[in-house]
C-alpha cells in the first residue's frame, strides 16, 4: 500500500470510526444469525439455536479487537483511546496525579534549568563569526604557560604562520572618557586593527579600524560599545566622525559596536567582558621590547586547518624564535594554541558537568518514586488488567495502554517542569554564576524545549515499564478469584529494590553536597594573607595629558592619600598597582634573582610585581614578618628599595635573612612602562598575600615604592570604620577637589573581590544543596509511601499477630526493621557508589578530600535518621491497628 492510501485509510478510520465499528458489529451479528438460521433449520428451537451459534463463534470482543488491528490507522486510534482513558483515570485520582506530576515536574524541571545553562555555556558556539575556528594563543614565560605575547612576537607569528588567516591582539587598561556627560572611567582596550573584525560581523554604526591604522602615525581613533555610546553621547548617530576626549587627548569616533557585543576571554587573561572603548596601538608593535609580554592573541584558523596543526606549526615557530633572539630564549618561549570556546568554559566546565550529573540523579530518584506509586496502583489495577485479558485483550495491548498512560503522565510532568525549570533558571541566573554571566542569553530556547520533551518521554517509559510489565503478567484466574481488596502488592521485592536504589542515589548526591559544603566552609576559613573586612577600594586612571611624568602621578597620589587620611573614621590609606583578587588589570610579573647570581640562575624565578604607597601592608592587614614598611623617602632619588614576601625570601636566600640583600628586578622609575633592570635593597619581608585565587598560592611577590614604578592606573585601599556609603561620598568629594576631570571606578569593598573569588564554589554549593535537599525530600516521600502502603496491605496479618498476643511495640519494631532494611542497604550501597564517584569532583574541592570521612559519616547519619523517621510514622500507625475492625473488614 502506498503512503498516500495508508494515510487515507488512517484518516478514514479516525473520522469514520463509529461507522466502521457499526459495520463490523453488523457483520458479526449477521454471521451469528446465519448460523442460527442453519441450526434452527436442523430442528433446534430458535433460542437454543442462537445460544449455540454464539458459543460456536467464540469471544466476539477478542475477534473484534483483532479485526480492528487490521484496519488502517489502528495505532493512532488506540493511542487516542488510551490517552483519553489515561486522562480519565488521572482525573479520578487527583491526589496521585498531583503527587506524580509535581515529583516529575521537580525532577525534570531541575534538568531543564541546568540543561539550559549547560547548553548556553558548553554547547552553543560563542557569539562570534566562525567561532569554531577561533583560537587563543598562549605564550609561555618561564613556568607560566598561559602568558601574554610581546609585540614583536605577535608580528613574527603573524608573518610566519600559514595556519592562521588572522592573528589579533589586545591589551586592556583603564582610561577616562569625557563625552557629553560627567567624565567616566572606562576599561580601555588597545587592539590591533584586525581584532574586532575577528569577534563581530560588523559594527552597528560606522566602521572598524582599517588595516594599517595600528601603526605609528595613524590617526587617533576610537570605537565605542553601544552602552557607552548611549550613556556618554546620548545615542547620537552623528557622533561618527566627530572627536571626543579620551585620557585628555582628542580621538575621532569611527564606530559603535552592536549592543550584544562582549569580549569573552578566558579566565586569567585579565581581559574583562566590559571593555567599553577600543583604540589601536599608536606605535609599531614590532619595535616594542621582546621581553615585555602584554598582548592576548586571538587567531582565526584557515578553513580546514585543525587546532593540532596550528599548534605544531606555532611550536615550530617558537623554536625558530628562541634560536634567533636571546630574549625569547631567556623567556623560554613556547606557544600553545587552544580553542577559544574550550578555554572560555574551562573553569566552568567541571562545575556544570557535576551539576548536570546531580540533576540526573534527582531525576532518577523522582522516577523511582513514581514507579513505586505506580506499583502500588498496579496492585489495584491488576484486577482491571485481568478482566481485560479475560475479555480478549492481549498482553501487548495492555502493556501498550499502561505505557501510554505513563507517557501522558510524563508529558504532564514535563509541562510542570517547564514552569518549574523556568523559575529555577531565573533563580540560578539571579545568583550570577561566575564564568557563566559572561555568556550571553541563557534561556529556554527550542533546544531546551526539545530536551525537556525527550526527557519527559524517556522518564515516562523509564518509570512506567516495570509496573506495566508487572501488571500485564500475573495469573488471570488467581487475580479474578481474589476479591479485589486483598491483592498482594505486585512484586514486593521490586518495590524494595526501588527504595534501595533511590536511597543509594540520594546518598551519592548528598555526599557530593556535603563535600561542597565542606569546601565552601574551608574557603571561608582561608587566610588570604590580608584582612579584607573594612577595606574600601577604588580605581583611578591618569589621563596622559596631565599626568605624563612619574612625578605628577606620584604627587597626585600622595596628596589624595593625605586628604583621605584626614576624613573621619579613616584608619589608614594606601594604594597598589594591582589589588589582590582583582583580575581586571593586566598582571605584572617578571624574573628576579639575587644580585650577583650566576647567569644560569638568572632567568628562573618569577614574581608578581606590585607598586605601592607607604602604609599598604598596614591598610590591608598584611603581616610584616621582618624589617620595615616603605616610608616617604623611599623614592627614585634615595636608595632604591623593595619589600619581598616570605616565598621570595625562601627561594632567593634560603635560610638567611633577606634584609639588606640586593635583588635584581625590573622597574620603571622614569615613567610608566619604561622598564629597566636594576638592583634594589630589601628592607622588609611580608607574609605572602593570595593575589589571584583563594585556593592556589600563586607566584611570590615583590613590592616596590610607587615612585619606582608609576602606572597609568592604580587602586586605592582605605581601612575605615565608617559605613561604606558614607566613605564613598568622601572619596568622590576628595577626588573632585583635587582634579575635577578625574573619574573614579569600581568603588567597592575589598570583600566584594573575596566574594567573587568564592563565587563559583558558592554557586555550586547552593545548587548542590538545593538538589541534595530535593533528593532527600523525594527519598523521604518514597520511603514513607512504601512503608505506609505495606502496612495498609498487612492490616489483616498485623491484626492476627495482635490477637495471638504480639505487643504493639513488637509490631512497631517489626515494621521498622522490615522497612528500615532497604534504607540501610541503600545507604550502604550509596556510600560505596559515592566513594567510587567523588574523586571525579576533586577539581571542585578545596580543603577536603573526596573520601572525607566526616562527610561520609554525617551523610549516613542524616540519611539513616530521615529514613527511619519516614518509616516510623507508618510503623506507629501499624501498631495502632484495631484487630477487630481489621479482621471484620476482610
Amino acid at each position, binding site marked *: 500500500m502506498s503512503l498516500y492510501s495508508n494515510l487515507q485509510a488512517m484518516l478514514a478510520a479516525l473520522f469514520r470510526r463509529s461507522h466502521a465499528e457499526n459495520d463490523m458489529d453488523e457483520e458479526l451479528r449477521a454471521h451469528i444469525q446465519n448460523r442460527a438460521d442453519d441450526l434452527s433449520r436442523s430442528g433446534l428451537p430458535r433460542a437454543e439455536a442462537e445460544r449455540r451459534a454464539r458459543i*460456536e*463463534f467464540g469471544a466476539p470482543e477478542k475477534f473484534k479487537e483483532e479485526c480492528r488491528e487490521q484496519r488502517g490507522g489502528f495505532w493512532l486510534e488506540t493511542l487516542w483511546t488510551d490517552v483519553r482513558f489515561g486522562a480519565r483515570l488521572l482525573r479520578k485520582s487527583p491526589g496521585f496525579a498531583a503527587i506524580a506530576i509535581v515529583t516529575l515536574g521537580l525532577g525534570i524541571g531541575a534538568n531543564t534549568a541546568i540543561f539550559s545553562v549547560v547548553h548556553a555555556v558548553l554547547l552553543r558556539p560563542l557569539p562570534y563569526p566562525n567561532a569554531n575556528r577561533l583560537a587563543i594563543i598562549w605564550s609561555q614565560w618561564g613556568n607560566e604557560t598561559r602568558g601574554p605575547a610581546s609585540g614583536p612576537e605577535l608580528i613574527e607569528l603573524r608573518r610566519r604562520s600559514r595556519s592562521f588567516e588572522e592573528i589579533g591582539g589586545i591589551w586592556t587598561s583603564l582610561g577616562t572618557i569625557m563625552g557629553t556627560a560627567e567624565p567616566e572611567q572606562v576599561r580601555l582596550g588597545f587592539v590591533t586593527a584586525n581584532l574586532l573584525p575577528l569577534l563581530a560581523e560588523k559594527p552597528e554604526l560606522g566602521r572598524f579600524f582599517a588595516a594599517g591604522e595600528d601603526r605609528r602615525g595613524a590617526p587617533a581613533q576610537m570605537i565605542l560599545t553601544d552602552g557607552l555610546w548611549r550613556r556618554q553621547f546620548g545615542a547620537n548617530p552623528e557622533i561618527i566622525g566627530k572627536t571626543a576626549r579620551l585620557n585628555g587627548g582628542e580621538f575621532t569616533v569611527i564606530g559603535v559596536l552592536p549592543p550584544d557585543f562582549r569580549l569573552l576571554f578566558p579566565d586569567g587573561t585579565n581581559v574583562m567582558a566590559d571593555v567599553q572603548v577600543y583604540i589601536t596601538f599608536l606605535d609599531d608593535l614590532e619595535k616594542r621590547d621582546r621581553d615585555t609580554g602584554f598582548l592576548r592573541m586571538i587567531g582565526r584558523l584557515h578553513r580546514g586547518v585543525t587546532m593540532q596543526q596550528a599548534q605544531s606549526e606555532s611550536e615550530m615557530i617558537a623554536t625558530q624564535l628562541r634560536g634567533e633572539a636571546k630574549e625569547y630564549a631567556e623567556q623560554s618561549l613556547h606557544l600553545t594554541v587552544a580553542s577559544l570556546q574550550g578555554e572560555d568554559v574551562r573553569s566552568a566546565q567541571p562545575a556544570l558537568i557535576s551539576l548536570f550529573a546531580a540533576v540526573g540523579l534527582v531525576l532518577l530518584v523522582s522516577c523511582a518514586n513514581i514507579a513505586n506509586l505506580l506499583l502500588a496502583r498496579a496492585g489495584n489495577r491488576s484486577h482491571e488488567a485481568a478482566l481485560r485479558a479475560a475479555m480478549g485483550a492481549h498482553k501487548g495491548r495492555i502493556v501498550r495502554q499502561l505505557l501510554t498512560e505513563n507517557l501522558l503522565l510524563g508529558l504532564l510532568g514535563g509541562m510542570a517542569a517547564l514552569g518549574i525549570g523556568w523559575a529555577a533558571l531565573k533563580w540560578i541566573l539571579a545568583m550570577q554564576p561566575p564564568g557563566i554571566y559572561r555568556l550571553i542569553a541563557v534561556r529556554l530556547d527550542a533546544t531546551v524545549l526539545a530536551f525537556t520533551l525527550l526527557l519527559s518521554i524517556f522518564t515516562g517509559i523509564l518509570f512506567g515499564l516495570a509496573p506495566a510489565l508487572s501488571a500485564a503478567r500475573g495469573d488471570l484466574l488467581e487475580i479474578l478469584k481474589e476479591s479485589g481488596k486483598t491483592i498482594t502488592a505486585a512484586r514486593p521485592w521490586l518495590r524494595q529494590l526501588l527504595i534501595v536504589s533511590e536511597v543509594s542515589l540520594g546518598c551519592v548526591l548528598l555526599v557530593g553536597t556535603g563535600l561542597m559544603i565542606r569546601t565552601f566552609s574551608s574557603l571561608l576559613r582561608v587566610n588570604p594573607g590580608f584582612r579584607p573586612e573594612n577595606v574600601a577600594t577604588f580605581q583611578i586612571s591618569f589621563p596622559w595629558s596631565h599626568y605624563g611624568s612619574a612625578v605628577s602621578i606620584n604627587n597626585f597620589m600622595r596628596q589624595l592619600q593625605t586628604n583621605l587620611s584626614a576624613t573621619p573614621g579613616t584608619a589608614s590609606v594606601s594604594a597598589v598597582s594591582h589589588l589582590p583578587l582583582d583580575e581586571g588589570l593586566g598582571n605584572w610579573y617578571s624574573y628576579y634573582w639575587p644580585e650577583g647570581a650566576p647567569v644560569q640562575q638568572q632567568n628562573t624565578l618569577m614574581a608578581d610585581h606590585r607598586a605601592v604607597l607607604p602604609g599598604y601592608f598596614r591598610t590591608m592587614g598584611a603581616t610584616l614578618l621582618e624589617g620595615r614598611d616603605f616610608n616617604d623617602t623611599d623614592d627614585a632619588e634615595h636608595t632604591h628599595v623593595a619589600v619581598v614576601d616570605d616565598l621570595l625570601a625562601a627561594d632567593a636566600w634560603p635560610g638567611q635573612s633577606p634584609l639588606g640583600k640586593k635583588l635584581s628586578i625590573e622597574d620603571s622609575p622614569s615613567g610608566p612602562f619604561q622598564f629597566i633592570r636594576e638592583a634594589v635593597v630589601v628592607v622588609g619581608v611580608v607574609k605572602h598575600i593570595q593575589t589571584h585565587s583563594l585556593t592556589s598560592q600563586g607566584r611570590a611577590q615583590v613590592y616596590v615604592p610607587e615612585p619606582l614604578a608609576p602606572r597609568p592606573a592604580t587602586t586605592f585601599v582605605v581601612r575605615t570604620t565608617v559605613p561604606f556609603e558614607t566613605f564613598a561620598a568622601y572619596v568622590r568629594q576628595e577626588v573632585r577637589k583635587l582634579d575635577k576631570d578625574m573619574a573614579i571606578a569600581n568603588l567597592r569593598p575589598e570583600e566584594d573581590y573575596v566574594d567573587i573569588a568564592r563565587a563559583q564554589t558558592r554557586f555550586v554549593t547552593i545548587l548542590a544543596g538545593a538538589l541534595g535537599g530535593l533528593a532527600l525530600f523525594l527519598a523521604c516521600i518514597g520511603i514513607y509511601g512504601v512503608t505506609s502502603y505495606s502496612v495498609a496491605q498487612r492490616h489483616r496479618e498485623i491484626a492476627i499477630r495482635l490477637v495471638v498476643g504480639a505487643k504493639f511495640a513488637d509490631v512497631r519494631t517489626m515494621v521498622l526493621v522490615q522497612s528500615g532494611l532497604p534504607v540501610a542497604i541503600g545507604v550502604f550501597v550509596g556510600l560505596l557508589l559515592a566513594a567510587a564517584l567523588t574523586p571525579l569532583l576533586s577539581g571542585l574541592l578545596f580543603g577536603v578530600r573526596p573520601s572525607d570521612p566526616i562527610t561520609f559519616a554525617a551523610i549516613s547519619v542524616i540519611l539513616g535518621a530521615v529514613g527511619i523517621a519516614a518509616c516510623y510514622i507508618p510503623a506507629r500507625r501499624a501498631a495502632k491497628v484495631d484487630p477487630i475492625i481489621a479482621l471484620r473488614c476482610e
Partner: protein
Amino acid sequence: VAGQAQILPGTLDLLILKAVSLGPLHGYGVLLRIEQISHGALLVEQGALYPALFRLVRKGLLKANWGTSENNRRAKFYELTSAGKKRLREESEDWNRLAAAIASALKTRPEEV
C-alpha cells in the same frame, strides 16, 4: 466429527482466497464453502475468520460490498480483486510444490535411500 483437522497456520488466507474465487461470499458463506470444498475435513474457528478477512481486505486482495444473502439478511460479500487472483495463483503453486515435495519425501522407502 471424525476426520476433521485444524488448518495449518498460514493456510487460512489461502483457503479463504480459494473459497472466494469460486464466487462472492459473505463471511458465514466462506466458512461453509471451506467445509464443503474440503469435504468437511478442515475446521475453521468461526470468530477467527473475520480478522483474516479484514487482513485480506487491507492488503487489497479482497474487496467487500454489502448485499443481501440467500435468506434475505443484509450481509457483506467478499470477492477477489485482481491482486487477489494473482496471489491465489502464486500461493496455490507454492503450496502444490511444497505438498508434492513433502508427499514424495514421506513416500520414501528404505531401499530407495
